[in-house]
């Protein structure tokens, strides 16, 4: 089975602990995205799986075989590097053939295989060029081609799309996803781009400061972020996280004191377990609001401070006293700065985080 499992994976550089006790399991055919801000340890984790870094602690299993102490080549993994790491002195064709040559395949086999992959990735035109003479998109495709040309245990991608422009990135995202779909290998993609993660991953592992914050499907990560960090990190514009006091919970609705307003709002049943009067954080995504005509007990009133048209939608920066809120409304809605709007949260879109910043959830 082509799966990956890491247990208690830890990496220390001197006094610095880059990765602490990471546990992950990636099944064959599954795509896991390691997502996090720069310096969170995601690349180090990837490199330890690849065998490019020695583990300080913990175990790496690939295809159910313990890989600690094995060299990268013994692990039989394919990796696409952030800067592609194409062999600058070899042509595209030679780059692609390189891993197969290392496996001592016959020339005929290598040729047909390389041709096949080149055709699939639309590289046939550039086979005789050197990496220096390629565009960014082409380099990226060559890097992918070199990884998929062989039949490894699993795939590792390190920020594979970060060097591409927006259009190219969208295209490649689709292509890579399709390729991976067809391969039924365990795949780990490291990225700092949540859109990449959300679109490509079967599951996402959000990392911060060497720890895994949450591992879940893209949908769950988005709708049920495990804590304030994940909630704030995932989603653009980012989620409104409002400091609040829980005053009462009744019939699935919570009464919440905001800075200057009170609101009655639909929340998860588990909120029941929180003592009235506790400090909580109310999380509402900018797109989870709808504007209503009149203030009610389930609305928040806020003043439009700044208007950012984003094409199909418009982003409003609103102020409620000292609290800033982001609200996304339809393009057709006409608003002016200084106008006061009444915002109602869409049903079951409000999240409550407890005093420790953990999501309160049944």
């Amino acid at each position: 089975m082509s799966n990956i499992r890491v247990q208690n994976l830890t990496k220390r550089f001197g006094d610095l602990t880059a990765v602490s006790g990471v546990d992950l399991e990636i099944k064959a055919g599954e795509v896991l995205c390691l997502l996090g801000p720069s310096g969170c340890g995601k690349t180090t984790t990837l490199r330890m799986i690849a065998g490019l870094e020695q583990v300080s602690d913990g175990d790496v299993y690939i295809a159910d075989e313990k890989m600690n102490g094995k060299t990268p080549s013994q692990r039989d993994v394919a990796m696409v590097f952030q800067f592609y790491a194409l062999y600058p002195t070899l042509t595209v064709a030679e780059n692609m053939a390189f891993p197969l040559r290392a496996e001592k395949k016959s020339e005929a086999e290598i040729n047909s295989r390389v041709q096949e992959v080149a055709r699939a990735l639309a590289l046939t035109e550039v086979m005789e060029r050197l990496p220096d003479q390629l565009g960014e998109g082409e380099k990226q495709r060559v890097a992918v081609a070199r990884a998929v040309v062989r039949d490894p245990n699993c795939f590792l991608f390190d920020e594979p799309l970060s060097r591409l422009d927006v259009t190219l990135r969208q295209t490649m995202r689709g292509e890579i996803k399709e390729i991976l779909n067809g391969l039924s290998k365990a795949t780990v993609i490291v990225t700092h781009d949540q859109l990449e993660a959300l679109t490509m991953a079967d599951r996402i592992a959000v990392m911060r400061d060497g720890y895994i914050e949450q591992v879940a499907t893209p949908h769950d990560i988005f709708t049920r972020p495990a804590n304030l960090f994940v909630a704030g990190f995932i989603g653009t514009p980012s989620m409104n996280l409002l400091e609040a006091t829980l005053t009462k919970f009744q019939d699935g609705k919570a009464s919440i004191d905001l800075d200057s307003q009170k609101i009655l709002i639909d929340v998860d049943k588990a909120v029941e377990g929180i003592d009235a009067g506790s400090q909580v954080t109310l999380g509402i995504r900018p797109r989870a609001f709808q504007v209503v005509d009149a203030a009610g007990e389930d609305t928040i009133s806020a003043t439009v401070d700044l208007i950012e048209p984003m094409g199909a939608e418009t982003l409003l920066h609103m102020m409620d006293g000292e609290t800033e809120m982001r609200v996304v409304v339809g393009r057709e809605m006409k608003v002016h700065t200084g106008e006061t709007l009444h915002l109602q949260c869409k049903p079951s879109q409000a999240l409550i985080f407890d005093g420790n910043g953990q999501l309160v959830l049944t």
Partner: protein
Amino acid sequence: MFFKKKDRGIREAGWDRTLITGVVGMVYFAPVFWIILNAFKTRQDGLATPPKLFFTPSMDNFFNVFYRITDAGDHVATGMGLYFFNSIFAAGAGVLLALVIGTLAAYGFSRYPLRGNDTYLFVILTTRMLPPIVVIIPIFLMFRVTGLSGSYIGIILLYAMFNLAFSVWMMKSFFDELSTDVEDAARLDGINEIKVFFKICIPQLTAGLAATAVFALILTWNEFLFALLLTGNDTRTVPVAMARAMGGQLGVDYGLLSAIITLFLIPVFVVTYMLQNHLLRGVTFGTVKK
């Protein structure tokens, strides 16, 4: 990341620049030109006042490089042909050896830093700081004990040592500039460490190797003191044999000396010319931070 010609700052200048640098170059080259000219002059022409730019060229000096006329009027070979071979062989092999060993060490220093890495590098550099005269007696003694004295292997080892510091320093800076990702990619592609070094690193460093080789060759080509004391009659190099043109009855035989210098310049000049592009690219590649 990688050196690319097209986005670096070599701008075009026209023939006017050729003119300016041409004049500067000629002024700079004038002493060498004078030496080469001298090789074709008789002693009288060479010491003539005012200096002679136009004269009947004579090949006598070049003849005298290779043949000596005895009292009896016989022509006897001076062995200079052998000495030219010796110089090329000793310097070439010494540089090559230094390059091989130095590149390995540079790879080690760059990729697997030891504790106190910088100290080791500095110690290697200090070996070039001492006047060679200080170590010459122990080396001479050691060579005699080991039987290396007068052998090719001895002088080659010595020249390798001579160039090692330079090679290590220069090659390390080249390795530092190389992306380690490419090496990692190769490891993941399933090739062993030896192949990573030879198939991945070395092909990327041809410019750096060429530059180091040229510098090392230039520094070794004219080495005199060690060659004087440690080569034998059969392994003598040209710089030592060149002294034949100095001293003796005439003092310096300017014509003969010029002829030897001129001939001796040709190999190193040709090598430098051939590798000139690498020389510049190599130095750039190796030492400039992005």
